[in-house]
């Protein structure tokens, strides 16, 4: 059994268990799509959603901010590969989530593709070991998640491996540069109807997907969350890391609203035995990329 398959099997079992736990028959399920925007072709979704965002007037919280609260799911195909990949016996397949650059590929420096391949060949897929998924995989791992808003904070509660993100929306500086975090250090602000989140201080150990696509400790990400209709968020993340890429690049996908449910406790690491087996086979724990420019 490939470790990617076993991860899928584990995830499927967890999802099945979760579905059983959910209180109502429809809880945790997506409502019918209402959008005219294509949801699986991310470049088309991107342009369509930006157009819709111009006229959509989102509901507001008591303090007048766009209300992004609720339960959501992002497309899961990105966890196989955020770039375009065919349907195979091992993969469900999917379009590239990369919308910029125009060739829809991660603009790696010349060593980057080889590094991604080496990641895949040599290391335990970090999600198999239940490590926090990092930004942005924390959304497309796949998982269900909840957004909560309170004056001064947006909070994201993620079902997979029970990680959370606390995003302060008051002006405050990032943590110091010697602190690194699996989920990075997030600072949010509202630009019109869009929540803009600036992410620094990542530890460079999560991957974007099972293919080993990666960033490093010097990555800087800017995420943009925009409600484009009642049940769809346009999510875009621009990633720059001058030690790894030749230019900044952007991923986009829809987040679709789920009917309310109680997010269950997803004990991932507890009684997890796949990693031990992989280490016995000689797979190593990924230490993070060491870009030539940073060596």
């Amino acid at each position, binding site marked *: 059994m490939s470790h990617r398959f076993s991860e899928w099997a584990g995830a499927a079992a967890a999802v099945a268990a979760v579905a059983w736990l959910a209180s109502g028959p429809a809880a945790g399920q997506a409502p019918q799509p209402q959008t005219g925007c294509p949801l699986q072709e991310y470049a088309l979704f991107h342009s369509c959603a930006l157009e819709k965002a111009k006229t959509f007037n989102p509901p507001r919280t008591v303090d007048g901010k766009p209300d992004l609260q609720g339960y959501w799911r992002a497309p899961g195909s990105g966890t196989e590969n955020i770039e375009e990949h065919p349907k195979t016996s091992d993969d469900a397949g999917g379009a590239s989530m990369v919308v910029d650059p125009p060739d829809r590929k991660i603009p790696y420096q010349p060593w980057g593709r080889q590094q991604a391949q080496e990641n895949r060949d040599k290391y335990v897929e970090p999600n198999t070991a239940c490590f*926090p998924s990092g930004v942005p995989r924390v959304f497309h791992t796949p998982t269900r998640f909840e957004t*909560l808003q309170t*004056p001064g904070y947006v909070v994201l*509660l993620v079902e997979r491996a029970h990680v*959370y993100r606390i995003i302060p929306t008051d002006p405050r500086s990032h943590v110091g540069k010697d602190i690194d975090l*699996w989920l990075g250090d997030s600072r949010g602000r509202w630009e019109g109807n869009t929540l803009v989140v600036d992410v620094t201080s990542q530890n460079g150990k999560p991957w974007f997907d099972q293919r080993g696509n990666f960033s490093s400790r010097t990555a800087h990400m800017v995420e943009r969350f925009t409600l484009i209709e009642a049940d769809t968020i346009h999510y875009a993340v621009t990633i720059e890391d001058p030690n790894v890429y030749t230019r900044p690049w952007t991923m986009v996908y829809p987040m679709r609203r789920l009917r309310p449910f109680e*997010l269950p406790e997803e004990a991932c690491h507890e009684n997890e035995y796949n990693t031990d087996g992989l280490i016995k086979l000689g797979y190593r*724990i990924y230490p993070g990329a060491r870009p030539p420019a940073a060596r």
Partner: protein
Amino acid sequence: MEKRAVFVCAGLGMLATVWLLSVPAAGQGGAAPSGTYTPPRNAFGQPDLQGVWQVMNTAAWDIQDHPAQLFPGLPARFAVPAGQGVVEGNEIPYQQWALARKKENFEKRETADPEAQCNMPGVPRITYMPYPFQILQFANRVVILYEYLHVVRQIYTDGSPHPKEFLFDLWMGDSRGRWEGDTLVVDLVGFEPQTWFDRAGNFHSEALHVIERYTRTGSDHMQYEATIEDPKVFTRPWKMSMPLYRRQEANAQLLEFECYAYAWEAADKLLGSAGRSR
């Protein structure tokens, strides 16, 4: 590789962290006696418990009175600091068989403590581990986010009952809360039986029932109580209590402590240069 040994290695790092955090901070005190302080109310009219909080005690090692002592397998600088217990009356009313089991746990604590596996530590133990946690309040819910392992507790205060049955045991239990005057009262059941109360082997069964009470006693202080019931292990209910302190740093925020990630990194180091043959 023996997984347990790997996690014990990571425990070293954790104990180092604990030691650093156990140095008493300046500026303690200022709490009004319980019952005389009127807490501010939030937009929902609830007593405002929000903020970043942490204990300042040694209950993580032992919830009962204990002298300073070596911890098995660790050098002197990681020894256990002395502490006065947080259990009211200092006595835990174990049934006879359970007291024997507690003593056995204590003897084997270096490896038998589920904390050594970096598992979620249960309630109330997570409250008095040496890491901060943040309380957030919503109309029908209190959310507590813990720095340790990114643990999340959702405490529903909408009047909903515990589930009638649980498909599987919960490491952190099922929390249902209510406001009683100025106090948040949380009722927990549905626990996984593996967790302990501390590093000294105090334990419970799956019949554990916890009632927590959170009461502000000052602008930067809160009294925390946990009543413990477990008819399979104890002869009567018992209670622990301790103050919680608001973190005073202007830049206070939760960081991360991904215990098992460090454990796997330690395991990887033990592999040295031997990798998968390609």
